[in-house]
């Protein structure tokens, strides 16, 4: 039976450039001289380091532990010695430094003790914690921690979507992984399916990858799995967006502010399914990923790369051309320009796109917006980019948010079709980060206000308590004075006088005692 497919609004059809990098099988990368493993590789807080300089580590040893619920662990990709735990340049557009563990490999590849996980008998919470500690995150590019997604919401889950669409030009890592490891991806998908209690699994693959579809179908038949279906979907960018693929496969359009799980659908990348299978079957944490090296290289190819490997090390293996002027992490539509050639490969690195001035000429100058509406026609999330652009440009962020700025997935379709070559996505990224910063500032101010008010209240309360204590003490002293000095009737009239009298009596007694001890001391020497 042919499955009915749906379509999402907009989208574009850029040249795919995918055939070059799929000619050779996934290559191995020799160990580089040094691995630089950033601790912060996904959303959530920066994992705290578990190792210090000089320590030796085993392959798969945890070197960074999850810091908060959205954080995920980081592991030593190979055995060796920790040279330093220090800030290094991150593979991030900002070019800023972040805490990294620098490891000098010893070449022995000594593993930690690994064992298959009896995951079926584990408590779901324990299994999720194990997946967090195995550092498994979404490998489609967003690197969202998988353990956060592996909980079935209220009312259970109907469909698990495995995302093998891989719509962005140049990138072929999921394609090659599906061709070579189809069976393991399907095993991982069944693990996810059982964890979520999903009724069916739909594997969406764009129809420009017939080899991957054939390999997955063959593996499916060999394993004789029920309720899993491989679905070829039309090639159109950005089919690989989670919400877009869900729309195509199930017809469900996830509305603004809602999650797909509220409609009984969850989406995982094929690479993530592979990693989960590797973890439950072999007990191996996430140490490497498939990375496409494409663009300005002699032989574009996919490699299995350990995290922390410098990008230049991989690019040189593929024959980086001398006129290379930039690396882009990700594809040409959504990728980020890297600050230098030696930044490490991380969990988000699905592609190292090697660029040169000839391959990616500098964009034409930005022209005024003519409000043609092409961008709105191309937008896969039904936004109005030209309106958002107007407000973002004017730094009118509230208005931009009213046009649902935060529903923008930064796919780049709008900028791709813009006849005025306006870098729309850059404006949206700018506006988003400004809004976030403001929100954080606002939260910080609010909490400061609360603490300031609380402090004032506390000081007031302490003052009052002190006054009360003093009053109680005075009353007690007065009572004492009254009982001891009942012979002095004048004191009874005036409590102050009584106090003074009591103090004088105490002083007198002290003086007498002093005089006695003095006298005793005077006597001693003689």
């Amino acid at each position: 039976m042919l499955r009915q497919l749906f379509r999402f609004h907009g989208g574009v059809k850029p040249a795919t450039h995918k055939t070059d990098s799929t000619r050779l099988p996934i290559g191995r990368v020799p160990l580089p001289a040094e691995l630089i493993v950033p601790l912060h590789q996904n959303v959530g807080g920066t994992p705290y380091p578990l190792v210090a300089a000089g320590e030796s580590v085993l392959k798969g040893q945890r070197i960074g532990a999850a810091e908060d619920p959205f954080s995920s662990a980081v592991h030593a990709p190979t055995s060796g010695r920790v040279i330093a735990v220090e800030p290094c340049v991150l593979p991030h557009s900002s070019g800023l430094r972040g805490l990294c563990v620098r490891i000098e490999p010893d070449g022995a590849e000594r593993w930690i003790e690994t064992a298959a996980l009896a995951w079926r008998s584990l408590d779901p919470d324990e299994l999720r914690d194990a997946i967090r500690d195995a550092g498994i995150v979404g490998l489609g590019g967003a690197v969202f921690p998988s353990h956060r997604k592996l909980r079935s919401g209220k009312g259970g889950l109907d469909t698990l979507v495995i995302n093998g669409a891989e719509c962005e030009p140049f990138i072929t890592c999921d394609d090659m992984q599906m061709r070579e490891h189809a069976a393991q991806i399907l095993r991982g998908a069944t693990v996810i399916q059982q964890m979520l209690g999903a009724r069916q699994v739909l594997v969406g693959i764009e129809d420009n990858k017939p080899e991957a579809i054939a390999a997955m179908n063959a593996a499916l038949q060999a394993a004789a799995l029920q309720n899993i279906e491989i679905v070829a979907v039309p090639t159109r960018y950005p089919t690989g967006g989670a919400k877009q693929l869900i729309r195509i496969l199930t017809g469900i359009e996830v509305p603004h502010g809602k999650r797909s799980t509220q409609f009984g659908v969850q989406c995982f990348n094929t690479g993530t399914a592979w990693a989960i299978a590797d973890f439950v079957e072999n007990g191996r944490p996430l140490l490497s990923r498939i990375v496409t090296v494409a663009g300005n290289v002699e032989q574009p190819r996919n490699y299995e790369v350990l995290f922390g490997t410098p990008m230049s090390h991989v690019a040189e293996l593929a024959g980086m051309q001398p006129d290379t002027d930039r690396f882009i992490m990700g594809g040409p539509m959504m990728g980020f320009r890297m600050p230098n050639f030696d930044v490490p490969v991380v969990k988000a690195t699905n592609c190292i796109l090697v660029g040169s001035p000839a391959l990616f000429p500098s964009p034409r100058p930005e022209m005024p917006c003519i409000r043609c509406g092409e961008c709105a026609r191309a937008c896969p999330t039904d936004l109005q980019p030209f309106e958002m652009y107007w407000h973002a440009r004017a730094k009118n962020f509230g208005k931009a948010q009213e046009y649902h700025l935060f529903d923008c997935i930064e796919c780049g379709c709008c900028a791709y079709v813009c006849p005025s070559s306006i870098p729309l996505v850059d404006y949206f990224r700018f506006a988003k980060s400004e809004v976030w910063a403001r929100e954080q500032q606002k939260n910080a101010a609010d909490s400061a206000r609360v603490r300031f008010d609380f402090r004032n209240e506390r000081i007031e309360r302490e003052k009052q308590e002190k006054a009360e204590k003093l009053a109680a003490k005075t009353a007690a002293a007065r009572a004492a004075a009254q009982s001891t000095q009942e012979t002095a009737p004048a004191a009874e009239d005036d409590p102050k006088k009584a106090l003074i009298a009591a103090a004088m009596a105490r002083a007198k007694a002290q003086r007498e005692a002093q005089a006695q001890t003095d006298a005793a001391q005077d006597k001693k020497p003689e």
Partner: protein
Amino acid sequence: MLAALLTMTLLALLIGAALGFAAVKFRVEGDPLVDKIDAILPQTQCGQCGFPGCKPYATAIANGEAEINQCPPGGEEGIRKLADLLGREFKPLNAEHGAEKPKAVAYIDESTCIGCTLCIQACPVDAIVGAAKQMHTIVAPLCTGCELCVAPCPVDCITMETVTDTATTWKWPYPVISIRAAH
């Protein structure tokens, strides 16, 4: 004639009673304008404006006793927001009250600290932990950068450190500038 008078009197009494009831029932606690102004102020509680905290300054602005340009941490953006809210004219920051500085947090040199608690008493937002004769330290995420702890320290062990961007707090630059730089 009498009926008309009675009707009008009754009506007046009824409406008066309704108004009186509404005034008690729907009474607005506090001054909403003060709260609106207070929400714009940065809550550093630094007192550079000449008032003991953000709320008193907000009250003074609302009563027309203070200008809107006395808050250095709020900066130009804060003044603009206040001007918008109050329908007043924008004025540049009054230099008497200080200059706009990048956000900083206090840092205690723990080897010099003698544990005198003076800074703890000075901190308006309880962002310093420590006890008498015990080393003190700043809880950096809670520090508003008001600098009130710097002066009381008898051994000058508190310095203000500018907060630098990290990869998570970094902001994308305004696009036009980068394009011009590229050409």
